[in-house]
């Protein structure tokens, strides 16, 4: 901030209490943003300070926040991500969920850095933020509608077609613990059960409109950096690729059979990712051991081979349903797409293209190579607001229970829950949305379903702390296991960690930091790399940047932040800020009584017993060694979960230290 002008951030937070309809705003000091950036950084700070300990996440005192990243609205490439934060009703831990689209930037344009909602409305409502006018409106006619309908109805009611909406569908209304919050008709803040928290408040949606521009402290410098970044992206594919690529694409299978070889360059990579998104090479993930198969007990190259099965829900098999490309705010890559399905059994007019996680959770996990059914499952989740990872994993759990006689035809309502039975899986998804029959159990995820079912069902419930595990197998890249176990939001892959380094896939995202090369199956000496990667991931998320920016190499975070805000950040301060945010998230859990032993990675996921065949055969992951090293580097106590008092003070979290000690 200089001369009263706030650069980069808006300088204002909204607080809405739905119990008494009170609306207020606060204007934090510059130092607040410098310490916590934006997104769930400021969310963690505010929720830690304002929310009592031990509350029911679905109770009246719970807070849910909608939080743009610091760089949302600045036109920094890839800066279209926002987060939702709350105490997770699924895990009882700190909870957050990240989404793209345009909502985060619209909140900034309306003049705010966050919308915090507490209390519970006696009747369904939505919040309408129209610049400085903030209103709580009746959602009586919206309750029961799906997310796509809700967005349309709100726009019509307000006669505002260019506003942005985040909302829940029936699963969120019915407090499904795997429900998500949808924005822009298909972008999902999906994890941690955030949809249920909205539902518990009778909050159907938030709608936002703004027209303010983000002030940039040093526009010339910012434009220089921005142009350099865009220049990398605008590298054209080589002439050969450019001419031959479109010609060869339709005959790719023929070419593969004959060993015809293509070597596209970086420009072609951008073109490929822009064309296929994360569905690109999803079938390769199935084959190489990255994707969990058959509820984590299968072997991809045997049970769901790349050529004969996985390819049916990957790459060109999906691309043919694409109607047009989709790019989030400020994204020059555009890995999204809008699809239309006009199949023999299933159809829909419009849905976002499935991401890799959706492909793996419904496809690989359930051995479902039925393209139409798979696409329909994705649409059901997006239309109604359900986390695809948890939904796909919950169905895998149910299939394995059925296979083992724990669930019967009577329990499933007559559905033959066998591996790969696309029609049964679609039907079960519909039941989950309506909370009908077995769907009512699965709507709360595998942990709670297994507790109700009993009869040994827990053995097949693949979750950590209640959160269904993301679709990257630690038996291939063990440090994903560390992230799943030791991050304050368990079971998540976007929380950052050394898994991507073991894979040699994406390096650390920040210019000036060398990515360590890690050996996959050496379990010692990884704590520092895990800490560095997770701390930097906090800065990525809180700046509102997309993790896929890293595909093109590191970005000059420090220079961007300084150009936008006018600060004099250093690389060291950036890393410390990441550590501060991560430690604050951990402190939230420690204050709630969570320790390392509160979370367990299922034996199967760690290779106990090891798989008998395939690329991860005979692998057993030593998760304890890696996680303990991470805790040690972060200065978190393994037994209590508490960050060390002296480190809290060094990080500028004295008030947190006073709460914990």
């Amino acid at each position, binding site marked *: 901030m200089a001369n009263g002008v706030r650069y980069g951030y808006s300088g204002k937070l909204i607080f809405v209490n739905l119990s008494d309809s009170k609306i207020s705003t606060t204007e934090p000091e510059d130092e607040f943003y410098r310490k916590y950036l934006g997104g769930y950084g400021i969310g963690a700070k505010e929720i830690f300070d304002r929310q009592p300990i031990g509350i029911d996440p679905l109770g009246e005192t719970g807070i849910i926040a909608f939080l743009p990243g610091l760089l949302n609205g600045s036109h920094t490439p890839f800066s279209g991500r926002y987060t939702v934060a709350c105490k997770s009703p699924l895990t009882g831990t700190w909870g957050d969920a990240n989404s793209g689209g345009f909502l985060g930037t619209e909140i900034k344009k309306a003049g705010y850095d966050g919308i915090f909602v507490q209390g519970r409305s006696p009747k369904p409502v939505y919040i309408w933020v129209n610049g400085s006018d903030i209103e709580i409106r009746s959602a009586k006619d919206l309750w029961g509608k799906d997310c796509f309908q809700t967005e349309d109805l709100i726009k019509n009611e307000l006669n505002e077609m260019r506003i942005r909406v985040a909302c829940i569908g029936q699963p969120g209304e019915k407090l499904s613990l795997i429900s998500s919050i949808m924005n822009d008709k298909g972008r999902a803040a999906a994890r941690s059960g955030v949809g249920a928290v909205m539902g518990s408040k009778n909050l159907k949606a938030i709608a936002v409109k703004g027209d303010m521009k983000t002030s940039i402290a040093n526009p010339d410098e910012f434009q220089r950096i921005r142009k350099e970044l865009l220049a990398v992206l605008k590298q054209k594919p080589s002439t050969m690729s450019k001419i031959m690529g479109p010609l060869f694409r339709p005959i790719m299978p023929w070419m*593969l059979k004959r060993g015809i070889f293509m070597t596209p360059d970086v420009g072609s990579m951008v073109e490929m990712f822009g064309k296929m998104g994360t569905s690109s090479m999803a079938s390769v993930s199935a084959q190489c051991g990255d994707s969990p198969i058959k509820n984590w007990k299968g072997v991809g190259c045997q049970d769901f081979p790349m050529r004969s099965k996985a390819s049916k829900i990957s790459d060109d098999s999906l691309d043919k349903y694409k109607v047009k490309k989709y790019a989030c705010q400020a994204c020059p890559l555009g890995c999204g797409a809008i699809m239309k399905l006009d199949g023999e059994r299933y159809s829909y007019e419009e849905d976002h293209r499935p991401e890799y996680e959706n492909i793996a959770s419904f496809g690989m996990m359930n051995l479902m190579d039925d393209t139409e059914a798979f696409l329909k499952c994705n649409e059901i989740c997006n239309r109604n607001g359900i986390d695809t990872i948890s939904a796909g994993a919950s169905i895998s759990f149910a299939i394995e229970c059925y296979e083992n006689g724990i669930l019967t035809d009577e329990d499933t309502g007559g559905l033959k829950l066998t591996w790969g039975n696309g029609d049964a899986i679609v039907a079960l998804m519909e039941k989950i949305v309506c909370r009908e029959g077995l769907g009512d159990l699965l709507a709360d995820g595998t942990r709670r379903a297994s507790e109700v079912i009993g009869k040994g069902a827990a053995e097949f419930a693949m979750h950590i702390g209640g959160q269904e595990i993301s679709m990257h197998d630690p038996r291939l890249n063990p440090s994903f296991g560390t992230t799943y176990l030791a991050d304050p939001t368990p079971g998540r892959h976007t929380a950052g960690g050394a898994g991507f380094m073991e894979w040699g896939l994406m390096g650390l995202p920040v210019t000036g930091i060398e990515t360590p090369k890690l050996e996959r199956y050496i379990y010692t000496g990884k704590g520092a790399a895990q800490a560095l990667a997770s701390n930097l991931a906090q800065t990525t998320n809180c700046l509102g940047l997309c993790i896929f920016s890293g*595909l093109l190499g590191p970005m000059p975070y420090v220079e961007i932040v300084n150009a936008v805000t006018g600060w004099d950040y250093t690389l060291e301060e950036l890393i410390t800020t990441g550590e501060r945010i991560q430690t604050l998230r951990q402190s939230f859990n420690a204050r709630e009584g969570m320790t390392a032993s509160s979370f367990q990675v299922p034996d199967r996921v760690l290779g106990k017993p090891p798989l008998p065949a395939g690329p991860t055969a005979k692998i057993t992951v030593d998760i304890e060694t890696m996680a303990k090293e991470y805790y040690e580097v972060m200065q978190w106590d393994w037994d209590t979960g508490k960050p060390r008092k002296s480190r809290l003070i060094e990080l500028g979290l004295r008030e947190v230290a006073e709460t914990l000690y």
Partner: protein
Amino acid sequence: MKVKIAIHGYLDRRFINLEKEVKIRDGSTAKDLFSKISKDIKVDVLEILTKGAPVTMVNTERLEIPKDLSRKLVDGDEVVILQPLAGG
């Protein structure tokens, strides 16, 4: 003898999609195959394997690189190198 080799993925900042049958001498090792294929396709496969961390398999059995480069191949073996693009 004849073996099959398949390479799929984003390796060393380029896409590679290759599936072909290769004639090699009896008693050849995995390293011999990679050297031969590197000449054919003008890409240093051994360098890609040691610089990155793609999954390398012989008949669905993973090879540890560089330790298993000396693995002897037999007629009909299929050698696969896989590196997905991104995950999600």
